[in-house]
């Protein structure tokens, strides 16, 4: 356990150092993969909660006065990665407005350690990340929204009064504009 903690903290420090160097993207990726793979062999739990759809579904129906932005994404989905900074920005800017971003990751299990964790760490993602791991997609996709064909990026914005589903990507301005329809 101590070893693990040590490895973990080394990883954080190491990743922090690399981040400052900036542009050497490939180096970061390779180094991180080397560090993380031995952990995966020991079956160390992934850092994020993993849900099947039944366990995940309450996240789509919280009734606590907040406005939730639920974004479905994966590290292999280029447009998802492109819009990620906008969700992060909105999450940090709007925390006072009772707005919360939840990033629902759809990576495959073999990518959780090798791609998802390094990505979240490298980018310093602050929004909550959860993993939805349920292969019965034809059953659960319509439960998220009947309009959803299954493409990502896809985003659900909802609060107690209003609920809208978007099977598309967002710019920061577009996301802000949509969100304003919920919090005014």
């Amino acid at each position: 356990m101590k070893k693990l903690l040590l490895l973990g903290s080394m990883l954080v420090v190491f990743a922090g150092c690399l981040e400052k160097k900036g542009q050497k993207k490939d180096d970061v990726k390779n180094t991180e993969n080397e560090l993380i793979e031995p952990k995966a062999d020991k079956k160390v739990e992934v850092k994020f909660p993993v849900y099947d759809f039944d366990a995940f579904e309450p996240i789509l129906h919280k009734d606590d006065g907040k406005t939730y932005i639920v974004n479905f994404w994966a590290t292999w989905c280029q447009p998802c990665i492109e819009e990620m900074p906008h969700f992060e920005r909105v999450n940090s800017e709007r925390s006072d407005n009772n707005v919360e971003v939840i990033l629902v990751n759809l990576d495959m299990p073999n990518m959780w350690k090798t791609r998802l964790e390094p990505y979240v760490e490298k980018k310093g993602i602050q929004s909550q990340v959860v993993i939805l791991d349920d292969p019965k997609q034809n059953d659960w996709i319509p439960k998220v929204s009947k309009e959803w064909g299954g493409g990502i990026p896809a985003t659900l914005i909802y609060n107690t009064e209003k609920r809208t589903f978007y099977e598309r990507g967002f710019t920061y301005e577009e996301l802000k504009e949509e969100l304003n329809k919920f919090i005014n």
Partner: protein
Amino acid sequence: MKNLRILRWAPPLLLFVAAFAVGFKAATEHNLDKGYQVGDMAADFSLKNVDGQMVSLSNFKNAKGFLVIFTCNTCPYAQAYEDRIIELDAKYKPQGVPVVAIMPNNPSAKPGDSFAKMKERAAEKGFTFPYLLDKGQQVYPEYGATRTPHVFLLEKKSSGNEVVYIGAIDDNYRDAAQVEERFVENAVDAMLAGNEINPKTTKAIGCGIK
């Protein structure tokens, strides 16, 4: 009082929002809206195969139908289904329903899906079916494919090739051994037996087409 005023404005406002939403949807998701629905007649195409030959549905004189599958090299979901697509072709080509795979991505946006890479992948995996490049990206919007892999089962009739099933291959991308419902196999079997296909459409997560 304030509530009442809001109520009075609600219907026209809703209409306005709805109209806006419809317009917006039409503008951003034209592929979805214009694509084929079950019951539509699918247009033929002429696309270049990895062997250099041009392929059209009309080349298959004795086919009873087609499994037109939009797939690509780079998408993890498409990769997860490659072996199952090969198996579908092995099972149904002898029964008159061959697989015709179309790679819909723009190779300049996705270099891993270039024609050269398609050739490599087809050779590596031993594809037994045509693997066609949707050059100019004309065909996938017509079909309304939105992701890879995305299956369109066509039944050849005297009036043309009718779309009879649209959707996923089965209900478990992750593990072929864990599959409970083989959507495509059930659809082809029902089509060949002259039975009602159920379900006619299914949904799955896939990689957006670029």
